[in-house]
């Protein structure tokens, strides 16, 4: 049976709209879901960037909505109506197309990305970017920073860099960045991000891969895309965006965040095993703008509670941790869990060893993979608490130096990961 055509059969209306738009130089996609408060600003930022930075280029904005029940879609459509007949001298030379469609009934980043890549393929877009409709401060420079390296400078993947508060993005700082850097050998700091850019070539490569039904990339397909770029030998770079303001509301659930990101990372380890197993060290990549920008901020309240959750987790998950970790590592963790909170230190060597053993356990399938990932949550809390204690009085430069030191620990211990990875269950 012939394979289903995504734009021909599943999304014919989108296909029809895109065919009318025709060949395009640049595509910026905005997946949305109930973003009525932010969508207008985001789309305006893209338009402004097109008008300011890409006046001669053929451009399109692609809004993929996951079935918003608020006014998100209506706002985008209304903006379309207002676009024609702009003020003298402030519009780009060409028509700025904005195509909007509903792609799903529940948000799925991977489904959205697949549709973005297919659209980019149809339009033969030379460079693309994805921006989040939840970010409240996207501006025109962001768009240019994400598009330009792929459009004008032959980079295939463009990761963002943000100004971070001292205690912001710690999952990336203490786990995702150092581990992905050590494993894949490429120093992309924000591989898990809602904004990124990519070239036509990478889009075509990714589109053709049979990964789209995998649950592991459903929420975070961007890291898979970045790793695909690295594994394919494509040029990657980073572009500095400035501060990123998340929408107000409750903080994202840590368990879900780890399930999405670490789960995805471990899955990528498996998928790209042949690429990373023989590699050592890491390479710096081109960075446009500041490489890191940390600003002081108040420490989170109730850090003791974090330690309590670590300690209780180690106790409650003892049998699960025993299946995942080596006896030495497990014993060491139990040891530190018994320490007085004020004297607690996780220590980089133990943290790296723990993660590598978790990755190997995930690979060996010692239990349901979701359970492996979830068992990591209390241990990450321990690492988090350790960070809060250690860095309470550190300057941004000192924190950066410690991050670099942690990265090197991950790189130094990589042979241990390989050894564990290859060990028979």
């Amino acid at each position, binding site marked *: 049976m012939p394979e289903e055509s995504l734009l021909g059969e599943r999304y014919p209306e989108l296909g029809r709209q895109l065919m*009318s*738009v*025709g060949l395009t130089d640049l595509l910026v996609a905005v997946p949305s879901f109930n973003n009525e408060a932010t969508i207008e600003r985001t789309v305006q930022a893209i338009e402004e960037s097109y008008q300011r930075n890409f006046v001669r280029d*053929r451009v399109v904005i692609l809004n993929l909505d996951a079935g918003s029940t608020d006014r998100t879609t209506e706002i985008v459509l209304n903006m379309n109506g207002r676009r*024609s*007949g702009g003020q003298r001298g402030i*519009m780009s*030379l060409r028509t700025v*197309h904005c195509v909007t469609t509903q792609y799903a009934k529940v948000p799925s980043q991977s489904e959205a990305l697949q549709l973005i890549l297919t659209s980019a393929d149809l339009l033969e877009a030379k460079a693309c970017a994805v921006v989040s409709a939840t970010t409240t401060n996207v501006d025109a420079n962001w768009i240019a920073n994400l598009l330009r390296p792929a459009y004008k400078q032959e980079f295939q993947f463009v990761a963002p860099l943000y100004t971070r508060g001292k205690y912001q993005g710690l999952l990336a700082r203490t786990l995702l960045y150092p581990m992905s850097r050590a494993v894949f050998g490429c120093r992309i700091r924000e591989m898990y991000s809602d904004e990124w850019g990519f070239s036509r070539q990478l889009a075509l490569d990714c589109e053709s891969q049979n990964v789209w039904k995998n649950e592991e990339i459903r929420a975070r397909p961007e890291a898979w895309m970045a790793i695909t770029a690295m594994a394919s030998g494509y040029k990657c770079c980073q572009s500095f965006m400035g501060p990123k303001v998340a929408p107000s509301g409750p903080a994202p659930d840590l368990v879900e965040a780890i399930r999405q990101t670490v789960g995805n990372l471990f899955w990528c380890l498996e998928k790209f095993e042949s690429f990373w197993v023989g590699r050592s060290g890491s390479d710096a990549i081109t960075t446009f703008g500041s490489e890191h920008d940390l600003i002081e901020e108040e420490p989170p309240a109730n850090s003791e509670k974090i330690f309590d959750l670590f300690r209780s987790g180690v106790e409650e998950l003892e049998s699960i941790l025993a299946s995942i970790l080596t006896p030495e590592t497990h014993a060491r963790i139990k040891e530190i869990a018994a320490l007085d909170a004020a004297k607690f230190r996780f220590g980089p060597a133990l943290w790296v060893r723990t993660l590598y053993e978790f990755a190997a356990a995930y690979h060996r399938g010692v239990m349901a993979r979701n359970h492996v990932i979830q068992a990591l949550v209390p241990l990450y809390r321990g690492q988090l608490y350790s960070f809060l204690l250690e860095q309470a009085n550190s300057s941004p430069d000192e924190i950066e130096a410690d991050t670099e030191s942690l990265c090197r620990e991950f790189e130094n211990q990589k042979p241990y990961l390989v050894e564990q990875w290859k060990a028979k269950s």
Partner: protein
Amino acid sequence: MAPQDGNLWYKDAVIYQLHVRTFCDSDGNGSGDFRGLTNKLDYLKELGVNALWLLPFYPSPLRDDGYDIADYTSVNPSYGTIEDFKTFLDAAHSRGIRVITEVVVNHTSDQHPWFQESRSSRDNPKRDWYVWSDTDTRYQGVRIIFVDTEMSNWAWDPISKSYYWHRFFSHQPDLNFDNPAVREAVWDVMRFWLDMGVDGFRLDAVPYLVERDGTSCENLPETHGVIRELRQRLDQHYPGKMLLAEANQWPADVRAYFGEGDEFHMAFHFPLMPRMFMAVKLEDRKPIIEILEQTPQIPENCQWCIFLRNHDELTLEMVTDIERDYMYDSFANDKAMRINLGIRRRLAPMMENDRRRIELLNGLLLSMPGTPIIYYGDEIGMGDNIYLGDRNGVRTPMQWNGGWNAGFSSSDPERLYSPLISNPVYGYQAVNVDSQRRSEHSLLSWTKSVIRTRNSSKVFSRGSIEFLNPLNHRVLAYVRQLGEEKVLVVNNLASSAQAVELNLQAYKGYIPIEMFGRNLFPRIGDLPYLLTLGPYQFYWFRLRRI
């Protein structure tokens, strides 16, 4: 009083612009003349145009191609005599062709007797006919128009030892319209030609007639007062005659020159012209739609004049910096192609002699709202010579045939007022009227056909326009409507074939009849109307409910 319909002839006109000097030389002196032009009226009739706009043909030192007039009521002897002009005028009228001449009233040549008197002494009665000053600091900040040649709007006169005001070249002093005697003299000039039978005037450099301290000296209310006075006299004594404004401004600013239908009958739509070129180069309808959406409504008895190319540079004053850069990069990458804020090239070379693009641009010109003007030679695809200096490269002799001097003149070639275009692509051996007359498929034959089609209906000259906005931005589609008559125009601005779905629900049940071949297309139904167009192809469909 509402004008009678016949008085609105200018709305239905297809105007052909030429300089007598460039068209046909009857006496072998190397310069075109009125007798030569008269001999060629049948050609113009055959082409289908019904009005001629003649560039200045008055006695002049010719330091600005005749826009430096030294005598308003004579004919430059090189072009003939007043009698020759009268003969030409009668011959044109007998063929149903109206004649529009130039009145350059903002300034004269410094050789004009009025200026000679004015400068002769500070006590001369004509001293106040021009704008004099003891300093060159008055009207500071007023922009200089000819930025490539002029440093100031003031020039020092060594005879009367004072400065005179000039918005254009320094040898073109501005008349002082605050002086009633000047206004009377200008009206006398107009009367002179109106009495002879001229059908209308193009008034050159209209926005600059009056100067005031602390202003840009452009578009001043006092300038509008001067125009209204002239118009009132014209309507009173010469009904049916027409005034055309040259005001290179944004449409919203030009709008004021129509007044309440009591100033100019017509005005050039300058910003539309570069945007037609831009739209085709960009393959995007946006520049055209954008400028027409910014174009205000004008009184019922008024009309825009639209054009592709003319005797001047393709002016880029009414575009943004970004647009100007794009136009230069696209059409004038050789610096020699640029002059002032514009491009000194003809239509065909700008289109790289691509017949399809030339036809598309002419199709746009003839189907959009306004009275179209065709620049002499563009109907056969004449080339230019960017190395002739100033804008002379687009003012070379008309190419009638492949023989001696292109059939323009029997003089020695060295005596011609300008070298002929002689390169292998655009030269007169390759591009000329006679050879194109012999082919049904030549650009000339096509131009005749498209003008004939336009003239078959007043919907193009007087109808409303409604843009359709199909998703495919490479397609520019609109419906022209006058009463019950409707014409659908669909243009592919792209170099590649395009498909477009048009929402024609409002015309459900109508049959589109392609106007050039009179072919019937499928009846419009419930679904979006699908059309495919080849590169740069366009359709004109008469919509009929049969």
